[in-house]
């Protein structure tokens, strides 16, 4: 049996039913992005009134925040959909069904996008209305930045899901915390040059670093740096391939350890 869009759709339908049946889940999707935006947005408004730093040019702080949320929520949305199966003890049913791992992953990607849309659209509207977020200024670059960050989030989510398969819910906290490793390194709010020289190669190995550098170039110079987009895209290919191999290896390890049927603590 080959890849089946129907099976991907079936699993997406399962998550849609779940979200539709639980308003707290929907609220949670919107709550944090909006709360973050309000906090940092007001800070930006205050700071812009008292300084002319390039940090705030064209709403760079709020733009960085929104794109950071895309990266963070892309990974969380992917991993949480997977965790829903572990929490509901449904993983055994799915793994014993004809659903292939690639179809499972595709459904998690689709739901990651759906969750992002629910969470980010209200936050983006607020950012445009109140905090000087200039979507038109970012232009086509915004779509490229969005896509590149989501793919990085999926790559990280794939490894997190593999670790949960192998180690059970003991690895759950990674889903919530792992992206914070990226926060200081991928230069969300400041240029790469701020980092110590010895740390910069590590930062450059992260696709989001190139995206945030690209964002700042658009906002301050009005230039969409294709070289930065290409670097992020190439790194993303490497990351997603490596994550796929890691997921497959962790799945095999879980089969060997016999943990798939009792995926819990």
């Amino acid at each position: 049996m080959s890849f089946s869009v129907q099976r991907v759709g079936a699993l997406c339908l399962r998550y849609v039913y779940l979200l539709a049946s639980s308003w707290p889940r929907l609220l949670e999707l919107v709550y944090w992005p909006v709360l973050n935006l309000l906090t940092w947005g007001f800070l930006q408004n205050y700071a812009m009134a008292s300084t002319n730093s390039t940090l705030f040019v064209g709403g760079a702080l709020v733009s960085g925040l929104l794109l950071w949320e895309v990266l963070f929520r892309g990974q969380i949305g992917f991993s949480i959909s997977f965790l829903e199966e572990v929490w509901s003890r449904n993983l055994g049913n799915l793994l014993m069904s004809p659903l292939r791992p690639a179809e499972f992953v595709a459904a998690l990607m689709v739901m990651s996008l759906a969750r992002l849309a629910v969470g980010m659209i209200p936050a983006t509207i607020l950012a445009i209305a109140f905090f000087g977020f200039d979507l038109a200024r970012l232009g086509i670059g915004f779509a490229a930045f969005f896509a590149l960050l989501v793919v990085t989030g999926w790559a990280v989510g794939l490894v997190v899901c593999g670790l949960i398969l192998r180690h059970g819910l003991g690895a759950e906290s990674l889903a919530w915390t792992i992206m914070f490793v990226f926060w200081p390194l991928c230069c969300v709010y400041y240029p790469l040059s701020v980092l110590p020289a010895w740390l910069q190669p590590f930062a450059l190995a992260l696709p989001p670093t190139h995206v945030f550098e690209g964002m700042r170039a658009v906002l301050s110079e009005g230039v969409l740096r294709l070289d930065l987009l290409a670097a992020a895209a190439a790194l993303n290919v490497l990351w997603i391939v490596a994550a796929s191999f890691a997921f497959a290896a962790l799945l095999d390890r879980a089969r060997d350890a016999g943990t798939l049927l009792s995926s819990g603590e």
Partner: protein
Amino acid sequence: MCSVMSPATAAIEVENLVKNYGPVRAVDGLSFAVAGGSTTALLGGNGAGKSTTIGMIMGLVLPTSGTVSVLGTDMVRRRHDVLHRMNFESPYVDMPHRLTVRQNLKIFGMLYGVPDLSGRIATLAGELDLTALLDRPSGKLSAGQKTRVALAKALINEPEVMLLDEPTASLDPDTADWIRGHLERYRDRRGAAILLASHNMGEVERLCDRVIMLKQGRIEDDASPAELIRRYGRSSLEEVFLDVARGRRENVA
């Protein structure tokens, strides 16, 4: 009836199956076959290797050595070629609680590619007395109702091979008996092979043509329930189970 299948007709075939978890040998050289249209029980105390064996037959646990095939397909390497023709029920898994029974069955029906899914759900709901429960959240059901829903899920694709772990756990005697009757009729109508693990000896005597007694990962005995009772000089399968579990073989004919 104790029918050892030839490889050509076996729905499930296990050969020299070994599973080690680190230094612990959970399954130690099992070989057996299960024919279509028959019900076989795996019996044994806790840690005898039943769940690990079923996990390997499902392809969710990798054997250390040996082979497992279902409907002629190698479950280690090509399990996705045959998963749409089998199904399982286990108390170790559950269905999403917030979804209604109908939503859960619909999703699994789509995963298994069931044609005329609405009709299939209606038929199963009628057969398993679930019609009034279809639009209730699965998490609001009683334990017995959940077991019937899990069975409906296990039957959604009319599987040729069913793996059942404690299929009537949590059911009252009347409902449990009714479910056993349903499984018997399904097996006979579909010609399905059923492999079950159960601690309910009455259930095993009623449902199974054959019992494989496991102890410490090895086959301790393998015969029909009636033959085992005769062989051990006992009056019930429960007494045979205790003899095997406690290593009492002095009465074995």
